[in-house]
């Protein structure tokens, strides 16, 4: 599991790769929060092109970040999930609050 960050204008792109489950959730949460606190952003885009698997632990993690960002009026979007992850996100209802680009 890896996460890389890239700023473009005031948008923070987080490139997730590997698999997200309970075994990486704690570390990933800290890494993402570090990025979010280090820069001033308007939007956060979670790029999932290199992410191969995610279960509901990942949904909880994304929701947690969303709740923090919402307080700061920062938008959040999801980009390029694979079919497995797309189905998890759809069933979770996550797209209703965090749209897919």
């Amino acid at each position, binding site marked *: 599991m890896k996460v890389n960050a890239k700023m473009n204008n005031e948008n923070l792109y987080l490139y997730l790769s590997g698999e997200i*489950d309970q075994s990486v959730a704690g570390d990933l949460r800290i890494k993402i929060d570090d990025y979010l606190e280090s820069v001033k952003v308007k939007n956060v885009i979670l790029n999932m092109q290199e992410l191969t698997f995610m279960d*509901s*632990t990942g*949904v*909880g993690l994304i*929701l947690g970040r969303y709740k923090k960002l919402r307080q700061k009026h920062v938008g959040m979007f999801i980009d390029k999930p694979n079919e497995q992850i797309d189905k*998890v996100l759809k069933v*979770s209802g996550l797209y209703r609050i965090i749209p897919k680009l």
Partner: protein
Amino acid sequence: MENHMSIRVKAIPENESLARSTIAAFCLSSDPTVDAVNDVRTAVSEAVTNSIVHGYDGKEGDVLIEAQLTGDVLALEIVDYGVGIADVEMAMGDFFTTKEEEERSGLGFTIMRTFMDELSVESKIGVGTTVRMKKRLRNA
């Protein structure tokens, strides 16, 4: 074709990917659809996560995963010997979680139910929990 297997793993998060990958590989002999294998991987991950996070909650223990393939129908049993679930019906409700502060989504059973054809849960306080799931792996 009939086939079966079982694995018993230590209840640590690092074994979640081992469990879901092993069961996914086990399905392959039935010539499953890619979507069906992904659904199984996800459901196994949810069930094993529940055992680790809720059943044992950091305490030592094992998770047993039994798989039976009959033709293209997969039957799974995921068993833990943890604390058990007080109210199974409530636990299976959408967004129900006992660990909101740990950012758990409460969607594990929702995903298992949606991704598999059948789901049932048997649990006894202090004894443990058994999750049973079935899925047809080829398009019906």
